[in-house]
């Protein structure tokens, strides 16, 4: 031991005097971080080679070891190329053994550079040379140091805004820039690569510059992180604020003795629910929904759904019925007031009233009014409701193709609503209204469902006492509802649906009825509509008849009413222009008011050439007379059919042709003509599609007339289906056809015998005017229609 006191600084540590620049050290490779000189680092050593290296270090006097980072953390037995070149000579300060590991506290002492590995087994031993840390100084270093310090302070603030660390206290004492770099690098736990670069820096300026850029990046990341955190926090606090405000509002309302609006609403609904008379099942369900409503905040989407539902349930007339006026006389009066003719329908209504009078629990019938447009089906519904003293609701089924429209949507869907039926009941506010379902023949059907099938349930008196609408999901009793459906034709109504209804035909009005209706209802209505009085305006009976015959062609009354309206408007214009003379419309005035006649009436052709026969056809707007024309085609072949014929009609005509050819001899026709010439049959008007078998006998008459060269009688129209053997089968639409023939002035009509019963439907007044010839076979038709053939056939017929 020596005690030198001379002023010259001596080497300050004994061991450093002879410390060699080169040495061999056991190697402890570490992962993911680098050890800087002057800094302590705890390590946990587990790899056998590393443990052996540590053992060897501990067995030495100085406990020195080389701590060096490996490039790739996943390598378990690194070789020289896996290690960085620069490491740190360290002294083991403390150690203790764990189960399979050695816990170390190492203190970095000096930077060293690995020259080569002396030994690789059982542990690495490296030959190293000391690489003293850079000591350069100057203004640049100083400036860099300061700005690094600023940046570090900022990073610390950002990293821990809650618990600020006094960076100054931690590093203020550190005056050597390189050690400052190392301290900061380890504090901010940079990546290994960055730490290693800092460790290897050859000048302080380099190290500071690198650290500055690393810290800059760190600050940016931290700022971004804080920004994200702040945004999240502010979003959260917005919601909290709202919640808080709501709570305060509630408290204020309580303080003021006000109930909160939601509770008030629930209470109101409960009160209304209590007042309504409804079935127990419904009340229970409504109570359940009300309880759910009470638990929901008003902002919940379900809240409004449930509220609307409850309001609906409350408003439905579960047990509210209107009292029926069951006075037959009164009802008859009402019906007669509203509608002329239509005896059958009125009778049926009165019968129903009679039944209801005797048995109030009787099931309401389901009527189906079938008839052409404008025959008063809808207004009849109104009258029925009025005569019975019931509410009237109507909606159209035309084009409806979604079952849900009828039965409602389930409540799970947004904007769900009850079906039309329940809506109609709610509007009626009674459970026994007259509900008219218009256009039942025009129901659609597609992939969304089949409303006709849904109607089956509605229109079945056995089932409809517990009709379940999808929206309500509660049984509603429809059995007291008086259902009336309307249709233009029965053909398109599904069978099962038709079966449930009582069909009442409104076949169209005859001329006399139309005149009467026009006189009683239409003209007064149009006068009122145009602001005229009965004194100012009149139509002569002849003019009215002409109007009906020449300006309209329909079974109903719509065109007639329009035409009358037009006349009345023109008259009104005259009065408005200052005229004061009353106007009476005469036949010759019509052309001024309405223009030329749009319909050349289907008047009887006075004289028919051979090959033409008058037939009768049924259309939705009533009957029509139709002249079938046949013509020979010299040099032609076969049969040509024109006039927009349907398949049934074509086949029917072919049957007629076959019959005529087969009976050529009987008719006195030379069969060779069939081989030489073709035949063309045309059904005017060519633009109107036609179908059905009822023109069979007419075609046969036309062909017989053509081949024999004898014209058919022009005053005899005919209709009937023909078979190959010459039988005449019944057809439909007799009344319309007869009325059409009569309009055209035809006074003899040939009908199948089986249709004789239909003549009863004809108005009394026209029956005597027309001669009906009821036939079983085609021969009888030919006899009746072609006078010349009658002579020839008479022996056969006799």
């Amino acid at each position, binding site marked *: 031991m020596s005690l*030198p006191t001379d*002023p010259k600084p001596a080497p*300050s*540590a*004994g061991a*450093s005097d002879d410390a060699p620049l080169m040495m061999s050290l056991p190697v402890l490779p570490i992962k993911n971080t680098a050890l800087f000189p002057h800094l302590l680092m705890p390590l946990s050593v587990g790899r056998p080679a590393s443990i052996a290296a540590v053992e060897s270090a*501990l067995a030495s006097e100085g406990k020195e070891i080389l701590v060096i980072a490996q490039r790739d953390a996943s390598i378990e037995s690194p070789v020289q190329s896996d290690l960085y070149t620069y490491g740190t000579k360290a002294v083991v300060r403390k*150690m203790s053994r764990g189960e399979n590991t050695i816990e170390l506290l190492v203190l970095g*002492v000096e930077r060293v550079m690995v020259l080569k590995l002396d030994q690789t087994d059982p542990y690495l031993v490296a030959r190293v040379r000391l690489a003293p840390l850079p000591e350069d100084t100057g203004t640049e270093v100083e400036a860099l140091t300061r700005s690094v310090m600023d940046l570090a302070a900022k990073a610390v603030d950002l990293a821990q805004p809650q618990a600020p660390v006094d960076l100054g206290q931690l590093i203020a004492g550190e*005056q050597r820039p390189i050690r400052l770099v190392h301290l900061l690098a380890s504090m901010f736990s940079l990546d290994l690569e960055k730490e290693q670069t800092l460790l290897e820096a050859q000048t302080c300026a380099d190290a500071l510059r690198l650290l500055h850029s690393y810290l800059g990046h760190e600050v940016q990341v931290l700022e971004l992180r804080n920004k994200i955190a702040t945004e999240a926090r502010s979003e959260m606090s917005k919601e909290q604020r709202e919640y808080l405000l709501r709570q305060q509002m509630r408290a204020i309302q309580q303080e003021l003795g006000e109930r909160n609006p939601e509770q008030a609403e629930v209470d109101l609904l409960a009160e209304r629910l209590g007042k309504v008379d409804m079935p127990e099942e419904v009340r229970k369900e409504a109570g359940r929904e009300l309880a759910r409503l009470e638990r929901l905040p008003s902002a919940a989407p379900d809240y409004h759904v449930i509220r609307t539902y409850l309001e609906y349930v409350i408003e439905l007339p579960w047990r509210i019925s209107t009292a029926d006026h069951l006075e037959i006389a009164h009802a008859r009066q009402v019906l007669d007031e509203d509608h002329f003719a239509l005896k059958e329908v009125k009778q049926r209504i009165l019968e129903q009233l009679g039944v209801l009078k005797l048995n109030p629990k009787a099931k309401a019938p389901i009527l189906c009014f079938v008839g052409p447009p404008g025959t008063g089906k809808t207004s009849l519904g109104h009258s029925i409701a009025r005569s019975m003293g019931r509410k009237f609701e109507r909606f159209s089924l035309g084009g409806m193709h979604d079952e849900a429209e009828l039965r409602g949507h389930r409540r799970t869907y947004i904007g769900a609503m009850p079906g039309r039926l329940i809506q109609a009941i709610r509007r009626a506010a009674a459970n026994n209204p007259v509900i008219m379902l218009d256009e039942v023949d025009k129901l659609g059907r597609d992939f969304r469902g089949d409303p006709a099938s849904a109607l089956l349930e509605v229109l079945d008196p056995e089932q409809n006492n517990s009709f379940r609408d999808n929206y309500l999901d509660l049984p509603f009793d429809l059995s007291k509802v008086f259902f009336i459906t309307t249709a233009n034709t029965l053909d398109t109504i599904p069978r099962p649906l038709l079966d449930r209804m009582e069909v009442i035909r409104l076949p169209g009005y005859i001329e006399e009825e139309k005149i009467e209706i026009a006189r009683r209802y239409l003209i007064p209505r149009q006068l009122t509509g145009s602001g005229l009085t009965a004194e100012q305006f009149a139509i002569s009976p002849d003019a009215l008849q002409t109007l009906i015959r020449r300006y309209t062609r329909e079974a109903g009354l719509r065109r007639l009413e329009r035409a009358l309206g037009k006349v009345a408007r023109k008259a009104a214009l005259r009065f408005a222009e200052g005229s004061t003379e009353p106007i009476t419309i005469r036949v010759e005035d019509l052309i001024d008011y309405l223009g030329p006649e749009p319909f050349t009436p289907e008047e009887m052709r006075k004289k028919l050439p051979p090959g033409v026969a008058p037939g009768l056809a049924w259309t939705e707007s009533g009957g029509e007379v139709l002249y079938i024309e046949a013509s020979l085609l010299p040099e032609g072949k076969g049969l040509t059919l024109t006039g927009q014929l349907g398949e049934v009609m074509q086949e029917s005509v072919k049957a007629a042709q076959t019959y005529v050819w087969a009976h050529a001899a009987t008719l006195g026709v030379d069969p060779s003509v069939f081989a030489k010439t073709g035949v063309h049959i045309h059904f005017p008007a060519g633009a109107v599609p036609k179908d059905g078998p009822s023109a069979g006998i007419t075609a046969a008459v036309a062909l017989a007339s053509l081949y024999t060269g004898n014209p058919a009688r022009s005053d005899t129209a005919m209709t009937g289906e023909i078979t190959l053997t010459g039988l005449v089968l019944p057809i439909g639409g007799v009344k319309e056809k007869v009325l059409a023939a009569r309009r055209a002035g035809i006074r003899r009509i040939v009908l199948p015998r089986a249709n004789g019963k239909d003549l009863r439907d004809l108005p009394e007044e026209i029956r005597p005017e027309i001669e009906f010839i009821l036939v079983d076979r085609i021969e009888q038709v030919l006899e009746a229609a072609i006078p010349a053939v009658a002579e020839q056939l008479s022996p056969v017929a006799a």
Partner: protein
Amino acid sequence: MKERSRIVGLIYYASSQAAPATAWRPPMDIYRTKNGWLLKFELAGVELEDIHVYAHERTLTVSGVRRDTVLEPGASYYSMEIPYNRFERAVELPCDLEAAHLEAECRNGILLIRVITE
């Protein structure tokens, strides 16, 4: 690592002197005596020839190296808490050490340095 210690407040400053890094600092006691100062350094297991004491103006520096020489062949460490390798400890006293009389003594692993100023 050199430390200057002011007795009042005991504030330590890191040294900026370029010197080989040392592994540890021995604990130290300082006594005021009638005629000066008594400094005690705990340096158990350090060979006398490995201890260097150096006084310069007001600063007294003790440095050296503790070598682990008590190693039996075949034995291995189970736990280690005693720091080895180089050490250094410096203390600044409110008197000119170069003018004072210094006495050093080693007793049971404790280095005693007596500073006599009067």
